[in-house]
């Protein structure tokens, strides 16, 4: 929880007013994402529910190794850092899938975008992988795996929109070949 508060503060300090406005009140023309939205909501509610029941009532993960929790904290910090780094280099990082024509959207190519095409989602993957570890709950890892799958699904949908509507994205994708992890995907 402390890490999430730190993350919120870091995001707010890093993002511009325009990015904050776009994330709170996205402009028109967003691609509907019913599968992702429903799935992500279910996955996160299940995660919180399982963590609470595990740690507070049933103790399914009693004796969870402390060293693994410490590894989780390090991976979580890496994920949070990657998202904040992406926010610093992408002035168009919306919470919705849409081309921000009214803001003259351009392709972000600097910072983490020079290495991978979706560093914000890659950061989300690291956060999802580590959340169950940080809490010290084995079963809480399962819904986060579902969320990671949904992030990959959303990335594919987003890329369809970007390839079709954002000038220069095809050339950028030719230069930066991987979405989440260089050499893998």
């Amino acid at each position, binding site marked *: *929880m*402390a890490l*999430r*508060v730190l993350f*919120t*503060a870091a*995001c*707010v300090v890093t*993002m511009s*007013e325009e990015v*904050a*406005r776009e*994330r*709170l009140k996205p402009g028109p023309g967003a691609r509907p994402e019913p599968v992702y939205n429903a799935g992500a909501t279910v996955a996160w509610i299940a995660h*919180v*529910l399982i*963590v*609470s*029941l595990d*740690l*507070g*009532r049933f103790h399914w993960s009693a004796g969870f190794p*402390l060293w693994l*929790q*410490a590894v*989780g*904290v390090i991976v979580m910090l890496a994920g949070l850092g990657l998202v904040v780094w992406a926010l610093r280099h992408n002035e168009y990082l919306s919470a919705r899938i849409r081309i921000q024509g009214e803001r003259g959207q351009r392709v972000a190519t600097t910072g983490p975008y020079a290495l991978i095409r979706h560093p914000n989602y890659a950061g989300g993957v690291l956060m999802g992988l580590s959340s169950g570890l*940080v*809490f*010290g709950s084995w079963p809480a890892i399962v819904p986060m795996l579902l969320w990671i799958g949904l992030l990959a699904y959303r990335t594919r949908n987003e890329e369809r929109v970007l390839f079709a509507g954002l000038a220069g994205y095809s050339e950028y994708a030719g230069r930066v070949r991987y979405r989440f992890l260089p050499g893998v995907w």
Partner: protein
Amino acid sequence: MMRLVTFVAGTAFLVLAGAAMFLIAGTPNLPSVWLRLARQSWRCACSSPRRAW
């Protein structure tokens, strides 16, 4: 202004999520990784080798 709203909304969401976790868990004393790490560090610091005489 929008950044401030983002921070307030984000923090309020986390407080609500935390409260929900305590309610579902039935106790405010959930084991924390920070507490476990602090205890472990304290134990390591206190278990320095004793002199032989």
